[in-house]
């Protein structure tokens, strides 16, 4: 009987494709929107994950996100080095500065200064030049993938390249290398240089040390070390994950992204569910005549239930597969275009559960119609 049911389904090709398209579209909508939201949320922590050579970030208690500059006193670095359980600690400077490219284009950039001696805290991988080239005079590193967009020469055309010179805060610098990093939520291009050079480039402030990056001794208890650092300096030490979470929560809640995108995700979910349920229900209603015939021929209720379920779940599973495939594909395209997209394992799972639930609801609703059906209805029409 399942074979007959599937034959019924596939037989009307237009309706069959329509049904599949509906389910696939619903899946796509659910997966795509939530993946973009998750991707955005994930990208807020890109800088932290890329720089995660240490275990802890020491920062002012009030730091809300990774690009928040609430600087610390210089000597904090030495104090942190003196905390038991700390293997090493290096300074990180980070600040928003104005850059002026060769052709006069103005750009705001994020200048990151990493420890001079060890170059700890640098970008994850280099494309042109090497990290050690930062030791050259006036050397900075720019983002290889983001440069064409974020460091575009608006007047001269083209973009900033390897070995080009430009000004940051009226200090001449030279691109000594390009790096590749995870895409960041923050638009401003990130430019790396050494800590002391960053201090000489940046406008003088009373305190210039943004973070202390800490590596703990092997086997040390992160929470205990963080507590000791707090006791010694009065500052907060956060693990990479904690810091990324703090940043993510700040961006999602304080900027209204969660509300805006959450609404879109919710609407996508609701629309997907409605379209899908509606189409499945309609399909069963349209097939009522055939079920009537079958009933007249002596098919039992159980047989009909199995038939409807087989149809609904066949459409559900196939539609879901196609939808999730297109979702991934679209995500790849969107991701390559520089937009946020991230699909952790639970998004397809939730989408699958949602589709299954929709199918079940649609099946139950249509089954009540089928079971209440009088066989005679076939002949009445």
């Amino acid at each position, binding site marked *: 009987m399942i074979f007959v049911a599937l034959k019924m389904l596939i037989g009307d090709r237009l309706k069959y494709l329509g049904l599949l398209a509906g389910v696939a579209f619903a899946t796509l909508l659910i997966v795509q929107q939530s993946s973009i939201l998750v991707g955005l949320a994930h990208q807020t922590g890109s800088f932290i*994950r890329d720089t*995660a*050579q240490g275990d802890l970030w020491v920062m*002012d*208690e009030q730091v809300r996100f990774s690009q928040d500059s609430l600087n610390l*006193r*210089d*000597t904090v670095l*030495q*104090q*942190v*080095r*003196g905390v*038991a359980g*700390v*293997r*090493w*600690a*290096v300074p990180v400077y980070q600040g928003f500065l104005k850059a002026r490219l060769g052709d006069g284009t103005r750009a705001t950039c994020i200048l990151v200064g990493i*420890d*001079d*001696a*060890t*170059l*700890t*805290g*640098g*970008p*994850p991988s280099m494309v042109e030049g090497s*990290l050690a080239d930062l030791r050259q005079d006036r050397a900075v590193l720019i983002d290889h993938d983001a440069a064409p967009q974020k460091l575009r020469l608006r007047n001269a055309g083209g973009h900033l390249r390897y070995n080009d010179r430009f000004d940051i805060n009226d200090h001449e610098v030279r691109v000594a290398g390009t790096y590749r990093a995870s895409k960041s939520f923050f638009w401003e291009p990130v430019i790396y240089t050494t800590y002391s050079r960053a*201090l*000489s480039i940046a406008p*003088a402030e009373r305190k*210039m040390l943004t973070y202390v990056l800490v*590596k703990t001794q092997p086997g040390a208890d992160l929470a*205990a070390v963080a*507590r*000791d650092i*707090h*006791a*010694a*300096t*009065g500052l907060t030490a956060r693990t990479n994950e904690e810091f990324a979470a703090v940043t993510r929560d700040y961006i999602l809640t304080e900027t209204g992204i969660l509300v805006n995108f959450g609404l879109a995700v919710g609407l996508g979910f609701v629309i997907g569910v409605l379209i899908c349920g509606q189409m499945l229900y309609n399909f069963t209603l349209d097939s009522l005549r055939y079920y009537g015939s079958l009933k007249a021929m002596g098919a039992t209720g159980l047989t009909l239930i199995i038939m409807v379920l087989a149809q609904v779940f066949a459409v559900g599973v*196939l*539609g*879901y*597969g*196609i*939808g*999730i*495939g297109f979702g*991934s*594909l679209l*995500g*790849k395209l969107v991701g390559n275009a520089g937009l946020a997209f*991230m*699909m*952790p*394992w639970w998004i*397809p799972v939730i989408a699958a559960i949602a589709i299954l639930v929709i199918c079940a609801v649609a099946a139950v609703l249509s089954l009540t119609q089928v079971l209440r059906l009088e066989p005679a209805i076939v002949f009445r029409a």
Partner: protein
Amino acid sequence: MFVRKYVIPVLAVAGVAAAVYTVRSESRPVTPAPPVAEPASSPFNTPVAGAGIVEASTQNIAIGTQLAGIVSKVYVVAGAKVTAGDPLFSIDARALSAELEVREAALASAQQNLARMRALPRPEDVPPAEAKVKEMTAMLEDARNQFALMSAVEDPRAVSQDALAQRRFAVASAEARLAQSKADLDLLKAGAWKPDLAIAEANVRAAAAQVATVKTDLDRLTVRAPVNGDVLQVNVRLGEFANVGPVATPLMLMGDTDTLHIRVDIDENDAWRITPNAKATAFVRGNKQLKTDLKFVRIEPYVVPKRSLTGDSSERVDTRVLQVLYSFPRERLPVYVGQQMDVFIDGLARPTSAPASGSAAAAPEARN
């Protein structure tokens, strides 16, 4: 038909496969780049960390000059080994040399004057004076003779009273003139007066002292090494003007570098954790394999404001640091004077993590 029948299921399976691939590829964690060199880590359990700066064991001596002027000669190059007293550089000496000649001439003049006075009387002056005495003696004899002739006449009418008186006064006058000529001769023979000689001698000494003064100044134009050691920096060049007094960049920098000292800045909040003779290890920045144990020298008793990296003069000081001096033999590490090093000192342990309320109370004062 057969193919068509399977298009949709194949598409669906492919879709799920694509999704699985996407999920897997994204859950791969980013591996942060390894640092170019591993930062130094403490060899102690309760370390106090500080930034150290290498200096000479005599401290870095900023050589100054006592006299300003154009540099006329530089005797050493940076890196030269010198012993105390070796000349380092000279200031142009022409003005003082000229003055020395003037002073020496004045001294010679004073000496000649003294010699002249000592040589008095001049022998040629004596015979005329003696002749004068003789002449006067003769004239006295003549006057006496005439007076005797006159007074020998017994008849008062033959000689007038007036003529007799004239002869008598002539004798007295001749006596007086003889006495004067004798006195003149004695004065001449006596030579220079003692006090005059003393004055002349004093003049000679004064002139000699002035010559010595100028010579001293000339000597001071050559600046010499105050201690044995290395010349660390030479900031004077031929023809440049060397100023007197403290200058922004020292004219020359030198110090004894056989033993190097390392001056470690310790945050005042950690100062209490330092004990005299605490063990310490220094690491060369950029290569943590290069390290050495340090020998305690002293704790500077005065806590100073931390010198900031930015060097902005308007910068407010918000941290003071305790400076601790350690030493190590130069051959132990390939480091140079002025280089920064990471230093860990075996300090006292902090009180074990205080309960939440306690640390919260301590936090605000530590943060500012």
